[in-house]
């Protein structure tokens, strides 16, 4: 869906991105991960041409981005940033409707789409559509920011540390929403963060960047289990590696189907880290597992976590 081919960018004779090649398949959630100044944000912004690149090629949906007018390209690609960038003089509805209105959607369709998106982001449409951004909490503003990025139903979504400025509890909820939306809508998402936990939780593919180049590309499990270099090992974190392994595997992969246990069930799509936390909290070594509909489908035991 997104092909970046040998792209370089130099700022003030300092190379920011060097000969970067990365392919993001359709439907992937690719996290660009790395320390500050590694070029991850610049890479993201080159995709929708907010930053012009010096050499190489970028294709979105098979089309060379340089062949499309920048405004037209950006209207086809959702974009969400850390500080939300909501227009303070526009109501929530107008903010979400920005791109659909630029595209000339009829009033009725815009209105319905705003209702749909507010519902999707778990904000009551009647309560929120008329509010101004300053009347919302940080988490609500970020939800509106995500809704705005999704407004024109783009195939591709670019997100630049969208949840970095909200508190941990809100961030956790927002990450959950994004994972849900990604699975449901099948968007191709490129997501920039410096937070390894966030990357492990959300990504289908992680691209770790170091000084303008890719240090490693792989699934969250690859990155944790088989770091390609000392840099990656250092970035992922040596000490917490066992716990990180737990946080990239799902309960469903390790559970014992058909068995039963007492107590409150953990969801099958929870991570092993969640299951361990629940075991510690409840002082038990066996937990029942429930599927999405709430039906109990099996048991996860402490021993299963260390297999």
């Amino acid at each position, binding site marked *: 869906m997104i092909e970046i081919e040998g792209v370089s960018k130099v700022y003030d004779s300092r190379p920011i991105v060097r000969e970067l090649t990365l392919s993001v398949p359709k439907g992937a959630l690719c996290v660009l991960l790395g320390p500050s100044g590694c070029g991850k944000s610049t890479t993201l912004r080159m995709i929708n041409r*907010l930053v012009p690149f010096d050499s190489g090629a970028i294709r979105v949906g098979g089309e060379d981005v340089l062949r499309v007018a920048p*405004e037209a*390209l*950006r209207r086809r690609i959702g974009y969400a940033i850390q500080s939300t*960038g909501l227009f303070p003089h526009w109501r929530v509805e107008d903010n979400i409707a920005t791109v659909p209105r*630029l595209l000339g959607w009829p009033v009725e369709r815009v209105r319905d789409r705003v209702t749909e998106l507010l519902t999707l982001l778990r904000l009551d449409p009647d309560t929120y559509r008329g509010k101004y951004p300053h*009347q919302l909490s940080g988490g609500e503003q970020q939800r509106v920011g995500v809704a705005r990025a999704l407004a024109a139903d783009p195939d591709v979504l*670019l997100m630049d540390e969208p949840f970095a400025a909200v508190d941990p509890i809100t961030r956790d909820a927002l990450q959950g929403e994004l994972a849900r939306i990604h699975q449901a809508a099948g968007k191709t998402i490129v997501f920039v963060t410096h937070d390894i936990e966030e990357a492990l939780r959300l990504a289908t593919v992680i691209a770790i960047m170091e000084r303008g180049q890719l240090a490693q590309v792989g699934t969250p499990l690859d990155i944790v289990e088989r770091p390609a270099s000392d840099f990656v090992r250092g970035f992922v974190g040596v000490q917490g590696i066992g716990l990180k392994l737990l946080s990239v595997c799902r309960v469903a992969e390790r559970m014992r189907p058909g068995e039963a246990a007492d107590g409150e069930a953990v969801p099958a799509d929870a991570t092993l880290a969640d299951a361990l936390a629940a075991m510690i909290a409840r002082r038990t070594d066996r937990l029942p597992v429930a599927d999405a509909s709430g039906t109990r489908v099996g048991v996860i035991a402490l021993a299963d976590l260390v297999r």
Partner: protein
Amino acid sequence: MRGLWKTPVLWVAVLFGALLVDMRALRPVFFFAFPGVQPEIFDRAGFIELFISHLGLVAASGVAAILVGVSLAVFVTRAAGRDFRTIANLLATIGQTFPPAAVLALAVPALGFGWQPTIVALFLYGLLPILENAIAGLDGVPEALREAGRGMGLSPWQMLRDVELPLAAPVILAGIRVSVTIGIGTATIGSTVGALTFGTPIFDGLAGNKLPYVLQGAVLVALFAIVTDLLFALLARRLQPPG
């Protein structure tokens, strides 16, 4: 405009209008202020005629200063015009520090007597506050909003029209308010080169030693400026963005 009667603007405007129509109402004040002086009412031109001419001068120079000041501010806050920012500010500062009386003296040989040199002097004098505030207002638009707007595909023109100017509007308006209010007072010196303003009775009174004339002109200028300032205050409250 509900509640207009609660604001002072209506009452000051009524007083202003009444004095324009019949200055004799101020006679008791003249008797009190200048005992023993015959309270003559200025009659070389009607006060309404003076007002219309005064208003026209301020409006024409004000509109010109707004157009030029805001356009210049927009230009120097774009990437293409950034280099001209210091020069634009410098020119506007010179315009304001150069005394309007001197501008008049220099402009008369070129433009003749009357309203033309007055408009030039008022325009130059009023440009700086508008330019400075417009630049400050446009600079005050947070970078994140430009980033988000660009990222969503707003064109530079849409960005300016829908985001930057509305957000900068209160600050721009504050500059216009200062510029126009000061311009109303300054316009009086236009009467020294033959323009009709409320300065006409003032300068006639000074030349002919008729203090009531001076007071009549001064009171009307002050009321005009106050009414205008209060009207701007009303407008500012409406333009204030939510939050």
